[in-house]
């Protein structure tokens, strides 16, 4: 903690870090900020302070509540697809399921890495082209991206599980599928459910942003409202997103605590 106790190596790395930070702070382009003026900022804040409650529900399918429901629907369906499809990928990519052929797992891990590597937004753009703009493109984008995420996490859990349990069952004569159904699934099910719920939370957040590229959800009206500078509408949409995400976080938090 004290300066004296620090090794030379830590000092050097800290100094390098400081130099890098200063370098990036000085070389970045701040010209964009020049258009900002305090009066404009006050204007935005005033607009954000007066949410347009009329947008909350007006009976049409273009109001806040139905769009939020759509966003949750996108996230829910996307996560469900991903969870179901991540399981077979886990079965190929977990090292402890393929003791004799470890090269098989490389393939599964490669698939996961490739799927995870693309930003969700890029998937959304691709699927908007494939299935046309709309919520379904968002579902596919989230689904495909989450396969990679969940596949990786599922595999890690599978590889970290207690192998003695499996050996015990094998000792009394269970075959491969019996060990899967009677040991691995009961052991991993709560963990996998917890991970899937966590990713549902994440998916709600990304579903809210995918509307930026035309993949349905709350993002599209938000970006229109921002571009037309109708801050009271921006405000109500942001409130809606924050409240929804917050409530879902709490609910999944309670369920995940019970699963543990």
């Amino acid at each position, binding site marked *: *903690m004290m300066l004296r106790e620090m090794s030379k190596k830590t000092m050097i790395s800290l100094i390098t870090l400081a130099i*890098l*930070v200063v*370098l*990036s*702070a000085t*070389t*970045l*382009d*701040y*010209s*964009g*900020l*020049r*258009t*900002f003026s305090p009066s*404009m*900022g006050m204007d*935005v804040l005033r607009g954000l302070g007066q949410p347009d409650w009329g947008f909350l529900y007006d009976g049409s399918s273009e109001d806040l509540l139905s769009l939020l*429901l*759509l966003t949750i*629907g*996108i996230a*829910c*369906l996307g996560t*469900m697809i991903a969870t179901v499809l991540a399981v077979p990928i886990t079965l190929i990519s977990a090292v402890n399921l393929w003791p004799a052929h470890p090269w098989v797992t490389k393939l599964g891990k490669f698939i996961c890495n490739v799927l995870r*590597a*693309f*930003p969700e*937004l*890029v998937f959304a*753009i*691709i699927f908007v*082209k*494939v*299935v*046309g703009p*709309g*919520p*379904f493109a*968002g*579902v*596919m984008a989230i689904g495909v991206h989450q396969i990679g995420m969940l596949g990786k996490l599922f595999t890690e859990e599978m590889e970290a599980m207690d192998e003695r349990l499996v050996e015990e069952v094998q000792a009394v004569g269970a075959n491969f599928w019996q060990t899967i159904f009677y040991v691995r699934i*009961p052991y991993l099910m709560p963990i996998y459910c917890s991970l899937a719920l966590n990713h549902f939370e994440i998916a709600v*957040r*990304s579903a*809210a*942003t995918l509307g*930026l590229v035309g993949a*349905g959800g709350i*993002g599209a009206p*938000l*970006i229109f409202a*921002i571009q037309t500078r109708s801050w009271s509408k921006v405000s109500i949409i*942001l409130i809606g*997103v*924050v409240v929804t*995400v*917050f409530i879902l*976080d709490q609910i999944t938090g309670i369920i995940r605590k019970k699963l543990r």
Partner: protein
Amino acid sequence: MSLKETVHFKWYKHLLIVLFLFACFQGSVWITSAEFSQVFQNSSQMTAFLSRFIHPDFSYLPKLLEPMIKTLQMSLLGTVIGLVFAIPFSFLATTVVTENRWVSTFFRFLLGLVRTIPTLLLAALFVAVFGIGEATGVLTIAVFTFGMVSQLMFQAIETIDFGPIEAASAVGANKMQIAIWSIAPQVLSQFASYAFYAFEVNVRASTVLGYVGAGGIGVILNSSLALLNYERVSIIILTILLTVAIVDKLSERVRRSLL
């Protein structure tokens, strides 16, 4: 786990869960008007995209270097600013430090609110308010880091050993002294690990921030996608992948040496 609690004995409970999940699935399909056959019907679009995508335009690579470095700079600066703000707030959000349930609940609620706003939406909002450019990206990353790291940090502070705190307060240390001499040494390595983790996440996030005008490599990604120049999109994504992989490996190594 007793026998009565296993899958085979509580099947009615599991049946209910399965029915609920099925209802969620059907409801979501109905809400999003999903038609899975569409994916296969329009697969020609997908193959057209992929066939151009697997021929990256390598001649464009030198022009990507500068925006990529800018992206890294944005995430570094944003991470550092976010961390500076996260440390005091994470201390305030634990009952260990404040010894008052209400104060820490209030700060936790505040941090929770910051975390709920999706990064890209925040970037879009900041771009509209502060203008297009890298500075807006830094601001977005800073807010995002603040929300993410402060939660991880207060969870770390909650699990510390109380002995050193009692020892320090027994010899008459005040709140500030306890925080610096009893709490900080216990969580410092964890904090450093979270800082690198945050940097990793931020590099990933900052590559798409440009899509809404917040600077970095995302700006080129956006324009190439808009021009349907998929060979270029491909090389941009490859560059992002490579950078993220390198940053991941480096920060993983540093984090492992810290813990």
